[in-house]
């Protein structure tokens, strides 16, 4: 039987893909990965636009004690991720944001909170004796053992989050690009910001279950940042972001199925390669365009 053989890459791509989907756990990994990639990339696009990357970072770190605590209490880690991420999002929304000198103060607070959250996660893991090995999958992700029910749950929550994003998308875009004008035009900027942070919490909680708490950025930031490098049109950028998110997830999962090393390494590496590649490409085209402008200007 083929299932006894370790997977081997061949030049026959169709065969490779068939091999990839031979096991149910791998099918589920791809289903979950697809859902997560779409949700994270779409919401991440707005997050990067609103420059709330560090809110995303804090939320992802807070997810870790949530998941560890849930496992310690004997509940599914998913509940822990969602509960902690959403509560943390509401807390972040409640804290006023300082500017200027307050920034140094604020960053000290954020650093302290993140370290404390991680320490709490470590405490829960230690209290749940014998679980020390599971810490890796909580921090760095794992695609093994995703059940059908989990895929359905991810899909349902992801659809809900995307639906909210569709409803608030247009005013949110306006509020993100020019807060003052949007507020003057009667858009509820504050309420939108709170709603967005909650949606962001949901996206982080979803992504954490595939990438682990520490590597969420690979799906949340990289596709969005790369897309914004490629185009400044929001609709097109959103599509790019989702496309790149899917590419990173599928490639990451596919390679880690064939190669020995963990999925966290492959997704972050693919993400990094995509980001660097696009940076180089856009810089090259930018330089060429500048040269063309110069020659045009020099021409009589």
């Amino acid at each position: 039987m083929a299932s006894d053989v370790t997977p081997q890459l061949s030049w026959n791509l169709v065969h490779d893909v068939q091999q990839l989907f031979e096991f149910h756990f791998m099918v589920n990994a791809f289903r979950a990965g697809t859902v997560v990639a779409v949700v994270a990339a779409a919401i991440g696009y707005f997050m990067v636009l609103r420059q709330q990357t560090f809110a995303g970072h804090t939320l992802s770190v807070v997810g870790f004690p949530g998941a560890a605590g849930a496992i310690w209490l004997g509940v599914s880690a998913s509940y822990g991720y969602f509960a902690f991420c959403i509560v943390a999002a509401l807390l972040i929304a409640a804290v006023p944001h300082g500017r200027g000198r307050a920034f140094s103060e604020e960053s000290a607070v954020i650093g302290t909170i993140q370290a404390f959250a991680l320490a709490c996660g470590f405490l829960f893991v230690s209290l749940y004796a014998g679980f020390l090995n599971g810490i890796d999958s909580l921090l760095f992700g794992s695609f093994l053992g995703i059940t059908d029910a989990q895929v359905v749950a991810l899909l349902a929550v992801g659809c809900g989050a995307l639906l909210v994003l569709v409803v608030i998308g247009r005013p949110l875009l306006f509020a993100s690009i020019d807060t003052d004008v949007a507020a003057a035009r009667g858009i509820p900027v504050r309420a939108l910001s709170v709603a967005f942070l909650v949606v962001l919490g949901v996206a982080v909680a979803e992504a954490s279950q595939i990438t682990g708490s520490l590597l969420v950025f690979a799906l949340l930031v990289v596709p969005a940042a790369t897309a914004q490098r490629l185009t400044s049109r929001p609709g097109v950028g959103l599509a790019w972001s989702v496309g790149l998110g899917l590419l990173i997830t599928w490639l990451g999962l596919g390679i880690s199925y064939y190669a020995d090393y963990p999925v966290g390494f492959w997704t972050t590496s693919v993400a990094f390669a995509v980001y660097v590649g696009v940076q180089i490409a856009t810089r090259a085209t930018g330089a060429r365009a500048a040269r063309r402008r110069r020659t045009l200007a020099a021409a009589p």
Partner: protein
Amino acid sequence: MTAALVLAAGSGIADLFAHPFMRNALLAGTAIAAASGLVGYFVVLRSQVFSGDALSHVAFAGALGALAFGVDARVGLFAATILVGLGLGAVGTRGRPDDVVIGTVFTWILGLGVLFLSIYTTSSSTGNGAANVNVLFGSIFGLSTGEAVAAALIGVALCAAVLVIARPLLFASIDEAVAAARGVPVRALGIVFLGLVGVCAGEATQAVGALLLVGLIAAPAGAAQRLTDRPWLGLGLAAVLAVAAMWIGVLVAYVDGDVPPSFSIMATAGAIYLGAYAVSRVRTARAVARVGRGPAHRTWPDPA
């Protein structure tokens, strides 16, 4: 009764130092905490907490990279954190760092750490299965005497180095332009300082782990800056508060064996920050009340 209590406490403390692991933990911990407090004061003052965050990722990848290639974890740890610290200084991180670039690069470095971890755990049969947990969350009770002495010496040297450059660094941190005009080598200082932050990150990783070192650097320093505006007092206070967090944390973990020391240290540091926050709020409220009681209900001119 009081005498009995004192006696009991005395024998308890004697007990404490009877264990070599406690002696090592307190020896290394004190030096590491003092250094973290001093370095942290400037890190917070210069708004470079996120560089500390970046260094924590590097510390993880560096330590596990060294283990994967069969070298002492500390070699990779310090090499990585110092190099990246100097690199960050050379690139320049004034003002708000570019979140997206930092996030992308350091997520990948963390991914590399995961790769090294998997190489280390699959290739070496003699490998320590908990090595990654130790690197991520520290193992201050697991330090050998040699490691503790080395950590203490590096910590003392680090404190000395920070104190040597403290005066010009303070000037450069508070008003960079004026300092540069007065001939202070602002740029070189910035690079040297981030190199020292790298050393500090390597030190703190041994005590509380790569993931938690930001807390040890930021919390006592943030608390000190809440409590006083005077720089030298604040600098000293940051070191004292960090050492207090370390001692209380280690003692709590010693008394309750279920609590990992890294957690109790972080929890104490967080509590210290909260306390400082409360004190500064009360002070502000009192100051406002005093102003309010002044010349009755004067209308202030509109600032605009």
